[in-house]
């Protein structure tokens, strides 16, 4: 045994020297610039409807892509000065929101004026019919009304699979979350940039995972495959936030067209 250890020692020493000579990675350098699915607290909401979803979102992003993400995402009030400290906000809820205060409206307007992106995720969305029609909850409807007050000069449009959100990392054919919901996402586009994305799919519901490692919500009607596609959509949204319309660049066009043509997965 001792002899074996003696033989192993030179190798271990050499490995140690090699590790020592390698440039030391920059520990945690750049975490401030990592993707942070900050939960927006506005209109009386005190926290996201899916509390564990944001952390899981970051975890999935880090596992699947090269993008850094904050595994402990933050929360920010719309009337807090810190609302402009990052380019992304996630507004999740399942109940009707109260009318935004003038301070909240001003804060969100500052955020949008800097080019920030907001995801409005309807955690109360239903898919009773299972036919892909929108089952927006009171949150979804009221949130749209409040956003219309923040950005009165705009109105949402539908984003189909041709939009960069559906190809920013994964090639997706439709939007899905905890519920199948409508095939498209709605969005407010300002100055050519998608700034508000409305999801009637409860994306957070598909991502939420408890401390025990179990998914918190069943995904209907597609089960685990649908959950995987929901995670992919969440990854795509994060990639869109970090890369904007990178995948719309001309250099990607021929590749993506070929893959779209041969894609089997919806």
């Amino acid at each position: 045994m001792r002899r074996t250890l003696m033989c192993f020692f030179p190798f271990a020493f050499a490995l140690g020297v090699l590790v020592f000579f390698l440039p030391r990675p920059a520990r945690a350098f750049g975490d401030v610039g990592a993707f942070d699915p900050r939960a927006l607290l506005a209109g009386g909401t005190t926290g996201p409807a899916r509390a564990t979803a944001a952390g899981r979102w970051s975890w999935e992003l880090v596992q699947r892509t090269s993008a850094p993400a904050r595994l402990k995402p933050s929360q920010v009030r719309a009337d807090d000065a810190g609302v402009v400290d990052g380019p992304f906000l996630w507004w999740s809820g399942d109940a009707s929101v109260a009318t935004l205060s003038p301070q909240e409206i001003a804060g969100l307007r500052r955020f949008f004026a800097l080019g920030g992106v907001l995801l409005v995720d309807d955690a109360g969305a239903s898919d009773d019919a299972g036919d892909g029609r929108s089952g927006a909850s009171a949150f979804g409807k009221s949130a749209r009304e409040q956003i219309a007050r923040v950005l009165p000069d705009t109105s949402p449009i539908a984003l189909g699979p041709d939009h960069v959100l559906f190809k920013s990392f994964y090639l997706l054919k439709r939007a899905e979350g905890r519920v199948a919901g409508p095939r498209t996402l709605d969005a407010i586009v300002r100055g050519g940039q998608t700034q508000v994305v409305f999801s009637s799919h409860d994306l957070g519901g598909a991502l939420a995972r408890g401390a025990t490692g179990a998914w918190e919500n069943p995904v209907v009607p597609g089960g685990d495959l649908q959950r995987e596609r929901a995670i992919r959509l969440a990854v795509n949204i994060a990639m869109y936030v970090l890369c904007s319309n990178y995948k719309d660049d001309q250099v990607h066009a021929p590749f993506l067209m070929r893959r779209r043509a041969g894609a089997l997965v919806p």
Partner: protein
Amino acid sequence: MDAPAGQLSLSTRLAVNGDLPPWAAVIACVLVLVSLGVLVVHELRRRERGGVAIVASGVLALLALLLAVVRPVRIAARESVIGAKVVVLTDTSRSMALPEEPSGKTTRHDVGARALAELAKQSKDARLLALGFGEGAPTPVASKDGEATAPSAPRSDLTSALRALAASAEERPQAVVVVSDGRLDDPAEGASPENLAALGKELKVPIHAIATTRQGPPDASVRRVSAAGAAVAHVPLPLSVEVGCSGGLSCDELTVTARELREDGPPALLATGLSHLKDGKGTVDLSVTLERAGARIIEIAITPPSGDTVPENDRRLLTFVVARERVRVLHVAGRPTNDVRALRQWLKSDASVDVVAFFILRTQSDNPNARQEDLSLIPFPVDELFTEHLPSFDAVVLQDFDAQPYGLEKHLPQLSRYVRSGGGLIMVGGQNSFVAGGYAGTPLAEVLPVSLDDSPGATAADVAPITPAWTEDGRTAPLLAPLREVASEELPQMPGANILGDVRAGGLVLWSHPTRTTRTGAPMPILAIGDQGDGRSIALGIDGAWQLEFSQLGARTSGRGYGAMWDGLLGWLMRDPRFEPGQLDLTSPCVAGEPARLRVRAPDGGRDASGGSAREMVVELRRLDARSGEPDAAPLKVEVPRHAPGATGTVEVTLPPLPAGGYTARLKLGPGPTTRRDFACEAGGDEWADSRPDPDRLRALAAATGGSFRWANDDLALPFPKPAVVSAERHVVPLAPPWSWTLAAAVLLGVHWFTRRRSGLS
């Protein structure tokens, strides 16, 4: 030369009284003549006694009456004979420095000077004013010390000279003589007789012509280079090159090459072509693509046949000011972050920027949990980008990018050469940048403005939050002026910084670490800029600049700080004049062998960062086409006077006479990056491009304007207008008092009446 006026001479003559209008004198004379006629005719018809007496007394009476009316005076005057003013326009363009005869050493200018002297000798009655024409209004040909000036004008514009004469307030000439080889820029070759005649119409004088040269030297040359449109970076520029052989030199075809003179190495071949000559003339079309913007020197050259006696015009050195339609930027990011997002959005928001981006979205260790065809990822075409397409980019941005995993390491020498040959490089910090990205000790590290620690185990980053500190150079740097205008000196707190070494020679630190120092004890650079050969580079050792947009500071400044910072950084990299510390311009085209003047502009008057004493300003000249080992390969330094810049910060410096070639002038303001200007010095230039004389054009000019044509060696007696007589002094004296004329007329009229009465007439 101006011929002296004639000698004064005294002359005396009779005239009618000055108070009598000319028409009255004429009427009086006519009346007298008519009266005489009537008298004579009447007496001839009558033929009676006393007729002769009547006629005689009548004639006397009429003459006396006439004298009483005109009352003659005697005029004594001092007069001079003034020769006609003749302007001799001598060609002072550089083509007159070419030999007169194929084998002779006498120049055309010498022949012209001799002709001028001979003309002065033969035209003593005329006042010759010898002027030289070249560019613009004509000027006296003799310098202050009386020596004839050498032919140095870059053009031979006879039309402008004649127009200037016509517009002059001075005495108009009565004739013009042109002494030239006939190779004029204006009127152009093939000008119609109407156009030639129009040249003399304004002056309303004949234009005589004296041709200095009958035959040109044996010469093959690049006669003309014309470009179709302006030069734009990365866009092919069609060039039409006209070549020719003359003076008995035989050549059927000539090889034409176009090369770009570069500071970082030998001239780069851009295009080559073969021109087939017919009647001694040929044209070849070349297409050249210039990748770098700014003033670029292009050499168009032929391979001359044997027997060529004017080697100076075998190549032309042309300065093309290459514009940028759009700035092409290659943006490569190692991972998507907020900083990458901010930079991409800024690049995409600028319509003048054409950005090609490649982001690493997935590493080998990532598990996307999907098949390849479900991903929108494409291979990173590192080989294609950094070999084939690299020259087409104006700037490369490496943001948080690790060179090792993606095969960039093998292209770092190429990337380094790209920067030295005029490209721009920005390395933006992050956990995969600088030392952590494996760049230390590589060729790319050599073109960064800061040194990188390549020792084993070198620390790559300091993760302590910091707020970068402005250096004195940063406060005065024009490229950060837009940011200072927006955010003053306030900067957001950064999550950490890459470890950078000392700034290299020629570099400048604009932001530094507030506490950390380099090995030499200097504050560690955070933002540094520097010249690298023909190109430039920037090191930004942080990845939190996006907080200029998303932060409390960003909200207060509407996020404009981030764009202002990058506007300055990219603009400086692209040599945008707004962000240059100084500017250089030639006041006039450089001519080989003659001193050139360079205009230096330093907006801050060359003051140092503290605004105190003037910094040392030096212009460094370097040959672009020098071969190693040549004596002029070493840079030449010209010091700019410190006190000279005025309120506008402009000063002119004289460069010593330079041999023909391409040059780059760099203005060094202190230790930082330089401002450069490329220019070319040619021997002869356009004027020597076509060495053939053109006596036919002179002959046609003379014929069209009513002048005469002569060869310089012929008899130069020209038909000038006759001299004019001018009185200098005048005395008028009446021949008799007015009453005596009246009395005489009365008496003679009385005698005539008496005579008539005696003859029985009334």
